[in-house]
């Protein structure tokens, strides 16, 4: 690894992580998670009765995720309301979280997870997943694990963890590739794999290893924030 990162981080280092649980009193569970300048907040409502009624499933509960950017969280104001991008991220975020939640315990209900980005500096979906994972735990939803998410990027030929927007826009050599990954904290299972760019199949194996390493630190940050609020109560 030869690349020099503009903020002086090592290849495997994430940005400074900030995690806080219990930020929205109305919600059953809530949390914020930040990777440096990327700030995500998440609220969990439910399990509660799912409406309209025909959407209800008597065998299993439904996890419904919404992800979006606040209009002022980016340089060029984002038009309020869902976009194709935000709808796609909402869906994959749900898929990233579902493997850890015992939805069968809540038939006919919905668990709503709302994720919003206050400030975007790349890695918004990963920060959102980290926040949502904590918010679900805070809401007391039975979970077999926490989900830790981080992006691994490629700057020309070097793999680095948790890209900033500046790094994401890197265009020398092979350019930048951004691979968003979510991993279950206590097993080697991956629940989010989302990429666009240019990367060789063998390199993806390395990417998964780097994401696993970074996940350990994210897990610690999440646990610490959750403990703070439990002990505070």
């Amino acid at each position, binding site marked *: 690894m030869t690349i020099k990162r503009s903020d002086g981080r090592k290849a495997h280092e994430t940005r400074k992580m900030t995690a806080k649980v219990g930020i929205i009193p109305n919600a059953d569970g809530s949390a914020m998670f930040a990777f440096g300048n990327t700030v995500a907040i998440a609220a969990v409502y439910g399990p509660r009765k799912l409406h309209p009624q025909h959407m209800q499933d008597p065998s299993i509960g439904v996890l419904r995720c919404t992800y979006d950017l606040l209009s002022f969280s980016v340089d060029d104001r984002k038009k309020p309301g869902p976009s194709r991008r935000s709808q796609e991220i909402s869906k994959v975020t749900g*898929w990233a979280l579902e*493997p850890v939640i015992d939805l069968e315990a809540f038939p006919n209900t919905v668990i709503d997870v709302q994720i919003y980005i206050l400030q975007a500096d790349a890695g918004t979906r990963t920060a959102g997943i980290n926040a949502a994972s904590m918010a679900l735990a805070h809401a007391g939803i039975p979970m077999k694990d926490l989900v830790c998410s981080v992006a691994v990027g490629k700057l020309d030929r070097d793999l680095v963890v948790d890209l900033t927007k500046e790094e994401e826009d890197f265009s020398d050599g092979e350019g930048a590739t951004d691979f968003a990954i979510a991993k279950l904290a206590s097993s080697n299972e991956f629940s989010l*794999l989302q990429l666009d760019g240019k990367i060789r199949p063998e390199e*993806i194996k390395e990417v998964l290893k780097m994401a696993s390493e970074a996940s350990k630190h994210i897990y610690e940050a999440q646990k610490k924030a959750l403990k703070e609020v439990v002990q505070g109560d």
Partner: protein
Amino acid sequence: MEVSNLTKDYLNKLFSSGKRFDGRKLEDYRDVEVSVDVSNKAEGSARVKLGKTEVVVGVKLGIGEPYPDSPDKGNLMCTGELLLLASPRFEAGPPGFQAIELGRLLDRAIRESGMIDLSKLVITPGEKVWTIYLDIYPINDDGNLLDAANIGAIVALKNAKMPSLDKDGKIDYENRKGGLPLSKEIAPLSVSFYKLGETIIVDPTREEEEACETRVTFGISKWNKHYMVNACQKAGQNSFTEEEMNKILDLLPKEFEELNKRLKNHL
């Protein structure tokens, strides 16, 4: 319409012993049939049959403004529309997630592979550029629309002809000449892996696809003899273990080569 638990359990057992209903091996694609010129109004078009799954893809060119972040590049817009005629499972209303994902995955696989040289689609820098509209319509959905649509998109792009501009700068669709600015070497394909229980399969039929809980789709191309993954998306409620991913990543180039071999005359 979802598959019953009985079917799911049966398929799971069948897959575990390496078998499938239609006699294929787990890592086999169905027969691929490709034809072109579905519509002479389109700048390029293709029809793909993957077993009983059938998709038509058309390329149209229009004139538009470049995006502010790429003033020196033409535009690419990929859209999928799940016509109700193609399946009793499709529902009316605004585009659902499956349609959105179809367009977006295809867009990423093609854009990131560098197959299209968008910088050659500029008419007046910063003001006027060509937009390539790539529209996908399933005609019969019997599973694995994603991979079928990608084949159709590549073939349609390869067969497309550029319309010309008349002296007022309007598009003259009657006079088409020359192909789109495409790389001769790069032709990205989509390869999706589906997981049921512990088994990984490719190219599921509708029934198999609905039984599977989890999918991972790759956009892959080959450039300078190296395989390049240009897009990846995991879908569905379960996860993949590291071992499963490593196995899939070893299988990926083989599936890509196999599809390429079968599509040789068209790519």
